[in-house]
């Protein structure tokens, strides 16, 4: 099933693993979303969020060197209200709490399947739009 034709919204992918990012693009595009861009670092994510102003940011937390995904989200949300869905391998209480303080939009734990991702993205955008 390929839904490239439709546009359910634009999504900025922030992920330091290119394979995972590629898979995300495939899944999201397959489900009808437009990809605003792919940032591999927190700093890049802030800049791209300003430039593209997406409908949703899927944000990994561990982003290698530099600021992490939570810090990046914090800065992004200081100038915008873009919903942020954290998609990360970190599921410890401390990290989840930190993330929830910045954005309560959504939290997806790796490894996730395409269906789980689609459901989480759909729910987050729907919640944002209803607000």
């Amino acid at each position, binding site marked *: 099933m390929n839904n490239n034709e439709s546009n359910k919204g634009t999504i900025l992918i922030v992920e330091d*693993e290119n*394979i*995972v990012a*590629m*898979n*995300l693009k*495939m*899944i999201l595009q*397959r489900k009808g979303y437009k990809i605003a861009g792919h940032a591999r670092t927190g700093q890049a994510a802030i800049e791209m969020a300003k430039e593209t102003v997406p409908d949703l940011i899927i944000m990994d937390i*561990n982003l290698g060197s530099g600021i992490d995904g939570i810090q990046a989200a914090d800065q992004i949300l200081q100038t915008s209200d873009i919903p942020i869905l954290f998609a990360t*391998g*970190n*599921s*410890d*209480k401390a990290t989840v709490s930190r993330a929830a303080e910045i954005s309560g939009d959504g939290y997806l*734990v*790796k*490894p*996730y*399947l*395409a*269906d*789980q991702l689609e459901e989480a993205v759909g729910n987050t955008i729907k919640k944002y739009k209803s607000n």
Partner: protein
Amino acid sequence: MWVKVFLFLIAFTVSASAQKQGYELIDSLKSKLTVTGEDTSRVRILGKLSFQYFRYDTDLGIYYAVEAIKLAEKLHWDLGLAFSFNYMGTNYAVKGNYPKALEYFHKSLSKYTEIGNKQGIAFLCNNLGNLYRLQKDNSKAADYFEQATRINKELNNKIDLAKNYNNLGIVFANLRDYKKSEKYYVLGLEIANSEKDLELAAQIMINTAENKMELKDYCEAVSLSMQAIDISKKLGITYDRAVYFRHLGNIYLKIAGDKISQMSNCQFYSSSRITNLTSAKSYLLNSISLMEGINDLSELSETSLLLSQVYEQLGDQKNALTYYKKYSAFKDSVFSNDNSLKIAKLEKERELALKDKQIEIQTLEIEKKNSQIITAAVLFAALLLAVFFLPFLYFKRKAYTALLKEVAARKAAEEKIRASLKEKEILLKEVHHRVKNNMQIISSLLDIQSGMLTDSRMLDIFKDSQNRIQAMAMVHELTYKTPDFTNINIKEYFLNLVEHLQHTYLATNKQINYEIEIDDMNLDIDKIISIGLIVNEIITNSLKHAFPHKDTGTVKFSLKNYEGKYCMISLSDNGIGLKEGINIEEQKTLGLFLISSMCEQIGSTLHNSSSDKGTEYIIKFKLEEE
């Protein structure tokens, strides 16, 4: 002028010889005292000393009596107490302290009565009689003397009886009942003579002569006095003889002054006044001569006065004056002697006080010494304490410091371990995080790959593979949240797994009921991954193949813990059963291979049954390693 010879304490006469004997006896008793122990013989010696001293020093007499009483009380010796009380009373009586004397005589009498000592009772009756006589209560004195007389008669104590009679004679003479008095003197004299106690006989004769003189029977009075003088001369008792001479001189002086007597016819005296006065002078000079040898100033004074009167009546004024002067001189000497005695007594008291002071000083010195010894002992103890305890304290403190250091070191080590543990936990979490990321990459790769496929069979294979990865990843996810990685709660894991599979495979138009019963228990990560894969395969099979033509179905999953010894997993569905010809042991599919392989890995048994009513797997494995 004349003092009757009364008998205190059974037999007591004041004579020079007796005095001499007294001092010798005192020295002898004192030397005995130094070698005796604290026994009854010591009480006797102390008593005798008290008795001897009453003539010379009543204070010392009282002192020895007190000592005797103390020891007798300590020894619980009633007889000792009885005679010691008597000696105490005697000393007080002589001292003139009659109330005290009476108190102790009665105490003594009570003790003698208590122990039934009649001799003692007689002593005390005699002494009480004398005490009352001294207080001029002659009636009471007579009563006690009579009591003593009765007892001594009963006991046949003849000498004591004679002395009682003598005392009764004196008492009745004082009461001016000369008839009764003479009766007792006669009785006493008879016994004294029969018992050949001439000294006592002489004393009674003199007392009888006193009565005779009062009754103006001068002839008998002179006769008796002369007999007494003869006896004392024979016995060599100078003092008595001197006293008796003065007594005779006094009788002659009385005769010379009595006109009626001059008319009597008596062989011992003349009708001439001058002759009688000359006789008086002669006897009085004899008395003075004897008394001068003894140097009894009191007696000399009395006799000198009588002699001065005799010389005056004879018209010899010169001698009269001379003897009057002597009388005055002797009297002054007596007074002086008395004063000397008083001074001596004061000096003695002072000496005693000094001695007491000295004792007090010695006691204080001893106390001081003791105090010094105690102080030294305390200091020594403190030194010992310092010598032994301080090193102990030092070592204890050292040990304490070492212990503190050890505690600190242990705390530091603990901190280090804690920090290390924290670091390991972080690292382990990082590992799990990395594992999950890698699984995500694998899953993503499979997803990317499947996205390029069109064959539905191949897509299913990729999907199954992704689910297997998911099943394993879920264990890591749970491990990530669990503080103890070696014990993971399986209930949460299997509920999540079933929910995930349900979500993944179930077509929206099918209603599948899940009957899940999982015991709350912990297993290690290896076992959970293996069991997770088994459950994943079996439920996936059920959801994919058991209900191809049915809209409803039931999947049952139970995991039971049997007393911590073994675990039994039961997985079943009410679907159509396995296709004919499929044998789980042949492991023709990857799913069946995984089930069989994982069961082998955890050492479990696997039972499978399948029919058109459904499929059932029973897996049983031990929980404890053998």
